[in-house]
Every structure is written in C-alpha cells, then in structure tokens.
C-alpha cells in the first residue's frame, strides 16, 4: 500500500515539474553546502594533522612570547636561551632557528621567500625522520654558502626550475644548492630556503637573536614533564615569562579548537540554507494542498482516511527532500573535491576524501528535512472537511 502512496506522491510531484524542481533546488543548495563545508573542514583537519606529524610529536618548540610564525618580528630569544635549553638532559637534539624573508636571485629573477637559518648538524638530525630530501643532502658541519630548498622554492618560485648544484644569490651572496626537500604540503614551508645559522647571522646581521628552538626529546621521556621543567628553568634564567614552550600536540589541540569553531559557524550557515530549503518545501506543499483541495475531497469521498491523506502528502515532501538530498550530496562532494584539488595545486595540500558516512548522513538529513517541512501542510490536508473540499473551485 505504501508503494501505491509512493506512486501517488511521485505522480503529484511530476505533474508540477517546474515548481517541484524549484522546491528541490532549495534542498540541493542546503545539502550541498553542508556536505561541502563538512568535507572541506575534515580535509583541513587531515592536512593539519599530517603536517604536525611531519613536524614530529617528540619535539618541543620554544619561541618568544611575541613569536607569530617565521618572518614576523620577534624579540626575546637569544643564544643564551639555547644554552639554557641544552641544559635539560632529556633532549637529544636542540636546534635553534631564525627566519626572515630574504631577497633571492636566480637567472635574473628576484623573489622574497623566507630564509631559515639553522645549525647544520642539529637541523639535519632533527629533519632526519620528518623531512625527507627529494634530492641532494642535508646541510653538514662546515657548510657556509650552501642551501637546501623547499620543493616549491625549487620548482615553482622562479620561472626556471632550480636544480641541485645550481647557484642562487641570497641578499647578494652566492649560494650553492645542495639539497631539495620533498613537498610537505604547506606553501610556507615548501617555499622556504634553509641555510647554515652562522651564514644567516652574517648576511642578515641578526646578532645573537634566535626565533625559535626546536628540541627533540630522548625516546621514553615524558614530554609534558620535560616541558614543565624547561619552562621553570627558562623562567629562572631569564627572569621573565616572555617565552612559550609548546608541544605539537598542544598546538594541534589549539588549532583543532579554532577549527571546530570555524566548522560550527560554517555548518550553522549551511544549516540555515537547509532551513530555507525546508521552508521552500513547506511553501510548495501548502500550495500543493491548496491546489489539490478538491482532489483531497474526492479521495475522502471514495474512502480515504485522514491518515491516508497524511501519508500521501508526507511521502511527497519526504521524497522531494530525498531527491534534493541525492543531488545535493553529489554536488557537495564534487564541490569539495574540486576545491581540495584547487587548493592543493595552489600549494596548500588539502586532503578532501569521499566520505560515504557523510553522504548517507546528508541523504538521511535531507529526507528528514523534507518530512518535517511537510508535517504541517500534510496535517492540514488530512483535516480538510470533505464536503468543503469538494466545493472548492
């Protein structure tokens, strides 16, 4: 019997093609935006998690309290702090870094990527298990005017690709390219150029300033404890609290939190568009009930119960929601895959994947939205007085 009602509902929908489609489009937009936004933010989460993995979960990052990321003006950390960090026995490697945008020249072209200065031996150890090289070698003790390029810095920054052993000029000084990193997926790191710390100090005249210290703990150490110990020691030695000691896990948590809020806001916006789509269905259903008042009277005259009428109209609105859901899910998925592709090509690795659970959820959600929007009009239809309905012109 439900199957027959289903046929009746399909009949009603297809007999008002244009209006039905306009109604369904409302749901399509709502569901597509929800699906797209959720898969994009899931992708963003994936990408960020992956990048932090590449940073390594056994590392602690010390930066000046004002440190906002490479390239920003930061004051506070110096070589003295590096010595302090080295006092902690649980660290296997302590690698200070400094970063500034520098002028880089290659074959007559000039660009301003971020230049990282790091101690060759320590940074090589630090990178050993997280940043692999595509070609060449890490910096080593004794290197001076030698550089490792991020994959983007080598391949995309300049019109002509830079290869191993090519010469580039940084702040007017000639450097030899000894290595090229594999792509990590974020534009900033992939566009950066790493050179020895001493050389950096020389060409940037940065004195004993340090931007951040990355320290790797020995296997089996309790990272939060080491973190506390380091904080106490730094506070002691410096006499201020003008520094941050963070672990990757902490950063990841913070970013996830922010991302969660952004996600909630975006999904909220998408939900609003779905509600608007639902109101569209409701409106269309009210019109449909009005248009078919006489038919409802006829159906009651030939034995339809109130509940039969209710079912027919609910199936109709649920069906419109469902059809909108199918198209919305497909559209939303394509949209997010497209954006992910575009972002990845533009240098920000965004891992958008097809998520069957999310798609099912979208379908179900659209169906429920359709049913809910149909409840009031369908109830109204079911309660029509047959005599009055039959008199309706």
């Amino acid at each position, binding site marked *: *019997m439900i199957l*027959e009602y289903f046929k*009746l509902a399909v*009949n*009603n929908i297809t*007999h008002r093609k244009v209006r039905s489609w306009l109604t369904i489009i409302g749901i399509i937009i709502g569901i597509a935006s929800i699906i797209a936004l959720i898969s994009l933010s899931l992708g963003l989460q994936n990408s960020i998690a992956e990048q932090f993995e590449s940073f390594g979960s056994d590392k602690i990052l010390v930066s000046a309290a004002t440190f906002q990321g490479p390239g920003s003006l930061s004051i506070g950390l110096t070589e003295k702090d590096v010595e302090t960090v080295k006092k902690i026995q649980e660290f296997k490697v302590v690698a200070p870094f400094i970063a500034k945008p520098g002028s880089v020249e290659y074959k007559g072209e000039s660009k301003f990527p971020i230049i990282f200065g790091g101690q060759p031996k320590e940074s090589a150890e630090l990178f050993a298990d997280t940043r692999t090289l595509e070609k060449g070698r890490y910096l080593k003790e004794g290197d001076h005017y030698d550089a490792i390029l991020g994959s983007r810095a080598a391949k995309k920054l300049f019109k002509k690709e830079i290869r191993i052993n090519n010469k580039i000029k940084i702040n007017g000084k000639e450097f030899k390219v000894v290595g090229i990193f594999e792509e990590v997926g974020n534009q900033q790191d992939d566009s950066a150029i790493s050179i020895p710390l001493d050389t950096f100090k020389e060409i940037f005249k940065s004195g004993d300033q340090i931007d951040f210290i990355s320290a790797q703990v020995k296997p089996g150490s309790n990272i939060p404890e080491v973190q506390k110990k380091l904080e106490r020691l730094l506070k002691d030695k410096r006499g201020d609290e003008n520094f941050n000691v963070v672990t990757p896990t902490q950063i990841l948590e913070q970013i996830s939190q922010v991302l969660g809020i952004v996600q909630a806001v975006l999904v909220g916006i998408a939900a609003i568009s779905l509600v608007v789509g639902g109101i569209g269905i409701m409106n269309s259903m009210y019109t449909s009930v009005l248009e078919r008042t*006489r*038919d409802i*009277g*006829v*159906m*009651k*005259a*030939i*034995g*339809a*119960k*109130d*509940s*039969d009428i209710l079912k027919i109209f609910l199936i109709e609105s649920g069906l419109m929601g469902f059809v909108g859901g199918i198209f919305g899910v497909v559209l939303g998925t394509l949209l997010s895959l497209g954006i992910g592709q575009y972002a990845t090509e533009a240098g920000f690795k965004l891992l958008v994947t097809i998520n069957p659970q999310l798609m099912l959820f979208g379908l179900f959600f659209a169906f429920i939205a359709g049913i809910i929007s149909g409840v009031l009009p369908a109830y109204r239809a079911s309660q029509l*007085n*047959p*005599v009055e309905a*039959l008199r309706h012109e």
Partner: protein
Amino acid sequence: MQKVIQLQNVKKSYNLDNVIVNALNGISFEVNKGELVAIMGPSGSGKSTAMQIIGSLDLPTEGRVFIEDVDITKLSHSNIAQLRGKKVGFIFQTFNLIPSLTALENVTLPMLFQDLNKTKQKQKAKELLALVGLQDRMDHLPPELSGGQRQRVAIARALANDPEIILADEPTGNLDSKTGGEIINLLLELNKKGTTVLIVTHDQNIAKRAKRIITIRDGLIAK
C-alpha cells in the same frame, strides 16, 4: 425487506460567518435494498446536503443516520471513512476525477484505500472500465476524455468496492440529453443487478423511470 438507509429526523445547519443556514429541517425516510429512488426539489432545497449526509461525507447537526443498521453518527472518523469507501459509491455532477491519474488509476483508487490485493485491484478496475464501455480508454487522463466518458469512469470508480448504495447527485447535469440518457441507462442496469441507487435530478423524464420519487422542499420532505 432489508433497510439500507434510514434517516431519522435529520437536521443540518451551516454556520456561515455567524449566519445560521438551515439546509435540512428534519427529514426522515427509509430506503430498502435494491430500490431506485429519484430525489427532486427546487434549487437550494437541500438535496445535495441530504446526499452528503447519507453518504457519510458530512454529519447531521441533529438526528440519526443508519447505513445497514449502523448508526454512522456514532462512528469514529476513520471508521466512517472505511464504511464510506466500502458501502457507498458517489457520482457527482462535475465527475470529480483526479486529473493527474489515468482512468484506470482513478478506478483503482477506492480499492487502494480499502487495502485490497493489488493484482486483483487492477484486474477489477479493468473489468469495470470494460463494463462502462471504456476498455480502450484506460490509460487516458481525464482531460483527454469527453464529459460522458468521464462520467463513465466515475461510475466505474463508484463501483470499485461493490457498494450497497450508489449516490448520484445530478449525474447528467453537465451532459447533453443523449449522453445523459446513456448514463442513466447504465445506472438503471446497476440497479437491476441489485444495487440501491439514489439519483438527484431536475429531469422529470429521469424521475419517471424511478419507482419512487422523494421531493425535498425547504429542507423538508414534501408530501
């Protein structure tokens, strides 16, 4: 003789914007199984109202209505609908087919609401359409049919659940006299097979063919 319809002092008033319109002022009559009754009377006298109440489409304001000894004024909403679908076949002046459904689907619809076996439904609907001479119009939509053909579909639909009673409210009102005559012949044939038929009509010639005429005037039965 078995009574199929009993009306006991039935009154019906409508409330139109706080103006009370008395459509029926207390009518009582009985119809036996297999009777053919013509209902006549001037426009606005309450004929359609009486038909709607007999067919349980509407409830009386006062009085009692029995269909085969069941007091329909005491039934629940859904039981009334069930009884109406099973026992009564309506035929309207304006045909009242569902325009988006084919002739066959229109005839199947009453059986659908009675939850009958599906394959039987279709078979039965085809037989009924053949009975009214529309076997080659089954897949047509009502707008593609002539008035007479539409009324035939409506008759086939009214017969779908083998009703005890056919209630025809001016079934020929929208048809020319020849087509109208054919429709009346069809109804008379059904009556011969044992179905109780009530026809509202303004046409003396049609009324004459019924063995019994009830005349309603100002909501009362005229003697």
